[in-house]
């Protein structure tokens, strides 16, 4: 994970952003909505990768924070009768942060498989709560979330919900996405981010340069959970409904898949992985009832052929001629 100069990153990030801004005016609304899902998942994967790629901890329970973000929004609608997206985001981030803070205390003393299993088990506790406490959570029916108002009520949905989602809501998600990416980029390049990478590479030595390993892991866990919770809060209005599925460990597996697909040893890998996975899944589901098998084959093929993920492999290919000189 070499450091990328900010200028070099901006040089290609700026055109990509321009393309993303222009997109809703060029492609059909359905494509824009599909990409919105991709961007939302990308934020979740970005949060997840702070733990996997930068701190060396494989969480198998990130559905907990995504789901907590989503359910927090549903509870805000159900109990506080609010429809403001800003309230949703705040509530989602705080709720997932609270859960991550508690789960983190329990998990950060462990690493490797023990960490993974513990995060998995804790997330399944939330899943079963959402499933069983149907008078609060709606059980397997889930909770409905209406179309929100944006920017403190200044932007509202008209009669055409799809038009709202494919334009105004898309730009809203894109803006949050850009802020989240920029924030995470600064975090991983900060002294704190370097300390996390040091912990990943060598826990003992990190302790012997004065880094309090558990404490730093906990902060990383918290930030990671909040990013994923933010994604969950953005996802609900898009989906219109939250169900316990989003808390189930299989969704945690998807977040892992996004990240591995894109390449967890790169900053932008999880983003690319999430967007591509979303397309893969959507088209696989649309074309065959055996879509899970298709995805399974893709995963196996990727692990065997591109162990560094899509972005990792592309970067390696680009770097090769330079190295040969």
């Amino acid at each position, binding site marked *: 994970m070499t450091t990328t100069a900010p200028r070099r990153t901006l040089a290609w990030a700026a055109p990509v952003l321009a393309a993303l801004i222009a997109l809703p005016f060029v492609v059909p609304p359905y494509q824009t909505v599909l990409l919105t899902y991709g961007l939302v998942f990308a934020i979740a994967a970005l949060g997840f990768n702070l733990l996997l790629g930068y701190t060396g901890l494989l969480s198998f329970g990130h559905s907990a924070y995504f789901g907590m973000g989503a359910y927090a929004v549903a509870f805000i609608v159900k109990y506080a009768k609010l429809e403001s997206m800003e309230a949703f985001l705040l509530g989602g981030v705080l709720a997932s942060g609270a859960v991550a803070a508690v789960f983190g205390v329990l998990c950060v003393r462990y690493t490797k498989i023990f960490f993974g299993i513990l995060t998995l088990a804790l997330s399944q506790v939330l899943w079963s709560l959402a499933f069983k406490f149907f008078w609060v959570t709606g059980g397997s029916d889930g909770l409905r979330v209406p179309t929100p108002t944006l920017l403190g009520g200044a932007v509202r949905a008209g009669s055409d919900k799809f038009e709202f989602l494919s334009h105004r809501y898309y730009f809203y998600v894109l803006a949050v996405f850009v802020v989240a990416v920029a924030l995470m980029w600064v975090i991983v390049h900060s002294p*704190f981010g370097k*300390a996390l990478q040091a912990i990943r590479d*060598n826990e003992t*030595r990190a302790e*012997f*340069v004065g880094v309090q390993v558990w404490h730093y892991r906990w902060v990383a866990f918290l930030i990671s959970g909040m990013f994923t919770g933010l994604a969950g809060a953005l996802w609900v209005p898009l989906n219109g409904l939250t169900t316990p599925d989003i808390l189930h460990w299989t969704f945690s597996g998807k977040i892992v898949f996004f990240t591995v697909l894109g390449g967890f040893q790169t900053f932008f890998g999880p983003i690319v992985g999430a967007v591509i996975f979303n397309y893969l899944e959507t088209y696989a589901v649309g074309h065959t009832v055996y879509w899970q098998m298709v995805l399974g084959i893709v995963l196996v093929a990727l692990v065997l052929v591109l162990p560094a993920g899509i972005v990792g492999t592309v970067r390696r290919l680009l770097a090769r001629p330079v190295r040969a000189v």
Partner: protein
Amino acid sequence: MDLLRTSQLCKSFGDTHAVDHVDFAVAAGEVLALIGSNGAGKTTLINVISGLIRPDSGRVDFQGTDITGASVHHKIALGIARSFQLVNLFDQLSVRDNVTLAIFSREGRTRRLFSLADADSAVRDEGAVVLKEFGLEARGSALAGGLSQGERKLLDVAVAYALRPRLLFLDEPTSGVSTREKAPIMDIITQVVRSGGITAVIVEHDMDVVFTYCPRIVAMHQGAILADGTPEQIRNNAQVTANMLGTTG
């Protein structure tokens, strides 16, 4: 006053007394060597003092304060740093980042989430100076995992040195490198340590290295201190000679 003093320090692993009632003192400004055959307890003594493992009994004082049960973090804050026999580096970080992380940590700046590490020119400059002192300035951008064994040994010491400790433990800084590389490595290390006014305890296997670079030598055998003196005294100590030349470990 002694910078460091251990009193009746003990650490056992099962029936093995790795550190057996050790009374050991280091004065400020000293560069001393800790010698002994394999299994003599040198590394265990350093591990106990630096906080990697806890002693069974006994006491460690640093600058007159009891630090026996202090956390590693606290000991580092007091100015006790160490390098490792088996090199412990952050392999996927650049050589520069390995050193600057120690500087950020020393300055309490690793808690900063919202500033770019590379934008801190004071830390970057200090890191560059440290790398230059250790002859690694040309390797700053390389990943630590890509260095040669000799460079890795130097970087391991450089990371500990960048903490600006008062007391630095160097656990076999020349182990695993060729005989030809040993002298240059020790030249650099002793030069840096002396010019920085750092008190250093060097664990070493190679007697030639020890006699050349360290004015005081402490010999350990089976967890206890066998002899303590100048190179001349140690060389003429019959017990040391017998144990160092013998095959028992």
